[in-house]
């Protein structure tokens, strides 16, 4: 074969970026990170700023929304994109994280008298709880094959929602109020107040960066290789000595952890949560985001997470003639999903691997 097929020799921006020396890459990464932190002030940029920022919803709040959507997308990407486990109930972990925080910190909680913790104290406990939830869900179900897992995860998320709605401890629609905000003060004013969402966005962004680093380390290691092998041919992987069950469980636990992080942040910002938020459509939306962005690739997952949160928020308060576009947001969204997937079946920013695979596969379709 004359081909020297290598992932690294890639055209486009990514290929260019990959060929730069490390310090150029570092400077670029730093530059874009700083830009990300400055996003709340995007509205002040002349000309383009006003086009970008949301109208019907406070721009920093919209940014914060994006940040927890991105976290969810990153976490689900580990489960679906890396380990190839189809999870249709991912919002369940988000819920566990949020409820864990609420139970420990909200005065409405039955155990408040005993704990009455601050937000920060509740975070580790809530995260342990979500990881545990991941393991508990995974333990019995990860032996199931592909799509069976999908419906079981969907079922679990629904059970979590129904239990949250229908048990008095979890307070259902009444919800938990007065969940404390993250700590810290500046000039005597709390940093994380109620009217300004910018600090929450910064916090979310910081968490995202940490998650990216961690997941990247995992992906480029024995762990990531094992996930990939499992995704490709589970039995062969096992015969090659991969402890498939263990790694699938890890994928679930890590996914749960990241989802839980999202929940913890969400609870800390909203200060009020109830069972209405954790509906199935939410899970499905996040999944759509991950795949649309490019599953198996963090940049793709991030883009997907941003899009599923930003598009509806941006449509809010816009009208087209006499009709409020916001009302049509999911219809527009549905059409956009079909369009994007038909045009780019591998997602907007696919992993190099998937991009190549698809390119090859495309040429192999027999006459229809």
């Amino acid at each position, binding site marked *: 074969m004359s081909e020297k097929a290598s992932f690294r020799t890639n055209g486009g921006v990514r290929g260019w970026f990959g060929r730069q020396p490390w310090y150029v890459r570092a400077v670029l990464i730093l530059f874009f990170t700083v830009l990300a932190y400055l996003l709340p002030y995007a509205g002040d940029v002349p000309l383009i700023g006003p086009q970008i920022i949301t109208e019907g919803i406070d721009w920093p709040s919209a940014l914060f929304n994006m940040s927890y959507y991105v976290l969810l997308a990153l976490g689900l990407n580990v489960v679906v994109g890396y380990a190839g486990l189809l999870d249709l109930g991912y919002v369940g972990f988000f819920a566990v994280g949020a409820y864990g925080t609420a139970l420990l910190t909200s005065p409405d909680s039955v155990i408040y008298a005993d704990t009455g913790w601050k937000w920060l104290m509740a975070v580790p406990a809530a995260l342990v709880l979500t990881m545990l939830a991941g393991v508990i869900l995974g333990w019995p179900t990860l032996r199931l094959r592909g799509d069976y897992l999908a*419906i079981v995860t969907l079922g679990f998320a629904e059970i979590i929602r129904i239990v949250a709605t229908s048990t008095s401890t979890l307070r259902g629609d009444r919800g938990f109020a007065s969940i404390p905000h993250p700590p810290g003060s500046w000039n005597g004013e709390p940093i994380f107040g109620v009217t300004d969402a910018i600090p929450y966005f910064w916090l979310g962004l910081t968490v995202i960066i940490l998650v990216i680093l961690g997941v990247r380390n995992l992906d480029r290691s024995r762990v990531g290789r094992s996930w990939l092998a499992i995704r490709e041919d589970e039995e062969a992987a096992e015969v090659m000595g991969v402890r498939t069950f263990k790694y699938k469980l890890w994928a679930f636990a890590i996914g749960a952890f990241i989802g839980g992080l999202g929940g913890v942040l969400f609870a800390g910002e909203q200060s009020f949560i109830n069972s209405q938020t954790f509906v199935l459509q939410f899970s499905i939306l996040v999944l759509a985001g991950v795949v649309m962005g490019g599953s198996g690739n963090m940049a793709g997952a991030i883009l997907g997470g941003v899009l599923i949160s930003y598009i509806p928020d941006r449509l809010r308060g816009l009208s087209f003639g006499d009709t409020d576009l916001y009302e049509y947001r999911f219809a527009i969204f549905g059409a956009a999903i079909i369009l994007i*997937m038909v045009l780019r079946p591998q997602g907007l920013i696919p992993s190099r691997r998937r991009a190549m695979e698809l390119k090859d596969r495309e040429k192999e379709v027999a006459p229809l």
Partner: protein
Amino acid sequence: MDFSGLINDFGPLTVTGLAQGAIIALFALGYTLVYGVLRLINFAHSEVFLLGTYATILTWGLFGLDQNSAAPSVGPMLLYMVVGLVAAIIVSGAAALTVEFVAYRPLRRRNAPPLAFLITAIGASLFISEVVGVATHRNQTGVPPIIQARPLFTIGDTTVTNLQVLIILLALVMMFALDRFINGSRLGRGVRAVAQNPDSAALMGVNKSRVIALVFLLGGLMAGIAAVMYDLKIGVTRYDAGFLLGIDAFTAAVLGGIGNLRGALLGGLLLGVLQNYAAGLFGSQWLHAASFVLLVVILLFRPTGLLGESLGRSRA
């Protein structure tokens, strides 16, 4: 837990559960057929059903009937039933085919990975239900009282109504016909062949595209019938009715063994009855939770559902 409630109402809960289960089963067939052949969870199938529920109501509307009309007498009733069924079947069948042509076929042409199909399916589902939602202002639409539920006979002290008998019978008949078709006919064998090995099927002379279209069409027809039964039983539809019942139907399909037609029937009936028992025992708010618990428990012991997969290929 209120056992007395369940015991007192055991008979009626069983019968209404069976009727609901029969609707779920018909609905589930579409999931099972498409999954069996394409390994695709056709999310948009719920909207195929949804459009069926509206098609019937709108068709009856053409006869000047609405939720406030008086129940018709037997003659017109039969006419309305036939017309309503035909309308739902046509609309649902056409919708299923449209989804296949617009959302899936282009992907197949590009040999797209399985997840891409799942996501377009979600997109199509979202699009259709939201368009219906916007068009109806997310309000409910009441169904004309075409069939007045009347007690037909009683077993013990459980009365069984004409509507319940109709629904259950219709589901059984359709199931039987479909099963004969898939397992007995030449085309049906083609469907199974495509399900198990698409390339080999082509080498045997099976037209893959035709088989796939056929499968969507059949699923659509069954969903159309289910939609009419739903209209009559529930009495109201709304833009999210498909999504809601779709989850039950998909659960039922998996419960019975996805890809397995008889499994869909078994799963549907079981689910319908169990939901009612759970509602009787724990309260109606637990009815969906109960179905998922049942699903998990069954899959733990039978990882491919009650009757296992039959259309589906085993992974070599």
